[in-house]
């Protein structure tokens, strides 16, 4: 019995498509963390007129399934309109790969999550979302539940790292129960900015470390 992956999975794993960074990306978003064993960063470049995804690239700290899914998923959505991309799920990716071992499905879910986050951020940024709800603490919390502490692999909401959130005159202040010297303070701050800065009624995001 050879390795439990389809030929296509192995092909994409060995020679992944659309790998790397996009320097002037419209959206950059990270899902997962190395602590969970899987992490994927996605970059989108979208045509502002047609909302067609002109370019998409990914980077992965992940296993074979994660890399292969990143590769095929970016192939699938490249050239699609952003609204169509929103409808692509991990199931589409797994199907396109000819299947994945059951225990490896979560790796492809992560890649699809990254895509959906990227699409959501783009739509919020460009005002494509239909109803513009004011940003509340609940919305901020739900966005931050995608930001993972690389040390523990648990998101900052669930691990109780968020002390307080203030929202006033478009300024969101997030106070974290973490010392400024924390090994990953900078990463966490960056990811929080990625998740909040673009919201339509947010003019600035401040991350304060109070650990």
């Amino acid at each position, binding site marked *: 019995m050879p390795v439990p992956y389809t030929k296509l999975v192995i092909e994409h794993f060995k020679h992944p498509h659309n790998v790397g960074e996009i320097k002037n990306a419209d959206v950059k978003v990270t899902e997962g963390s190395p602590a969970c*064993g899987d*992490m994927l960063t996605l970059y989108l470049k979208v045509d502002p007129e047609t909302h067609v995804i002109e370019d998409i690239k990914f980077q992965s*700290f*992940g*296993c*074979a399934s*994660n890399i292969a899914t990143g590769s095929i998923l970016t192939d699938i959505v490249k050239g699609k309109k952003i609204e169509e991309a929103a409808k692509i799920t991990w199931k589409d990716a797994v199907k396109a790969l000819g299947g994945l071992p059951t225990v490896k499905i979560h790796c492809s879910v992560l890649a699809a999550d990254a895509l959906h986050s990227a699409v959501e951020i783009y739509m919020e940024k460009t005002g494509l979302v239909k109803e513009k709800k004011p940003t509340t603490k609940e919305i901020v919390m739900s966005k931050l539940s995608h930001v993972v502490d690389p*040390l523990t692999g648990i998101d900052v909401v669930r691990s109780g790292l968020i002390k307080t959130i203030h929202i006033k005159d478009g300024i969101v202040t997030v106070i974290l129960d973490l010392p400024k010297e924390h090994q990953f303070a900078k990463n966490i701050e960056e990811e929080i900015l990625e998740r909040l800065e673009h919201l339509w009624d947010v003019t600035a995001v401040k991350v304060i470390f109070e650990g």
Partner: protein
Amino acid sequence: MRVYLDNAASTKMDKRVIDAMIPFFLEKYAVPSSQFTHTYGLEVKDAVDEARASFVERIGGKHPEEIIFTSGGTEANNLAVKGVAYANMDKGKHLITTQVEHNSVLNSFRRLEEEGFEVSYLPVNENGIVDMDVLTRCIKKETALISVQYGNHETGTVQDIREIAKLSKEKGILFHTDAAIAWPYLPIDAYNWGIDLITLSPHKFYGPKGIGILFVKKGTKIKKVLDGGFNEFNLRPGTENTPAIIGAKKAAEIFSKEDVDRILLLKKRLIRGIETTIKHVEYNGSKEHSLPHIANLTFKYIEGEAISLRLDFEGIAVITGSACYSKNLQASYILLAMGKNHEQAHGSIRFSLSKYNTEEEIDYTIQKTGEVVSDLRKLSPLGREDEE
């Protein structure tokens, strides 16, 4: 090229071992315990007794009946831990082990915990070594057993079992060591070192699978854990696996110090080669107190399953401590117990060598590992900052 570097899982049998076993399938197949019946049985019993005597001598025991043959290291560990715990409840129901034991030891203790025993799982330092002071502080009046592995199967880290045995003796506590992966790569001397129980596993040293050995020092209070007949001095029922017993003896007999020295040189060549050609590599475990045939390295910024699969494409067999690789999707509990973070555990690779490996294979492995790591790092979103 095909390079097998998963010898801590199991080794290729030596042809001489197989040759020694064959007569016990085809001619001497009688049951050894039928000593009052026929010559067939007596012949086999003689051979098994010789095997017992041979092991007693090699590990510093005194009496042939101190060697109990089991179905493997796993069963030997079960018998040692549970058998001693059940037999010594009058002394107390407190037991001590470490957080980095093999699952066959750990889960035996967990079972005992469910049954009302109290177990202390000793922490280890960043090199995987147990602190003697912590051990001393854990000892209670009711402590009936201390079980600490000789060498670790994942990192190769070696514990100071002589010191631990000494302390156990001073405190009047029975001491078991799981030497399944360590012996005969490292020597052991049961009586002189003061060890009461020792687990051995012949398939780790070019012997057959399905055979294990538990040394039980004469006079040690222990109860059988499998019910059946009176075999193995009424400690391990079941028909003896005589071909495997004979194979185990042969494997121990032909195991050579020269091979160990050569393996150690190969391991050093591998580590040096990797550390000088690949950046951002961390050595997991103690370089000083280490088994000669195991090295565990973390390649930062990338994930272990991806590394091991890519190495497999190149014909190289290794394993990783990454969650993505394991059946239960948990990262290596051993590396985590050493204070490594999940990221370090996920990027870890175990290389374990045998006497069959060659310099050529090692050099090929160094080269391919470099290529694979560099390829995967190109994909990784991590580690751009500290790259020169």
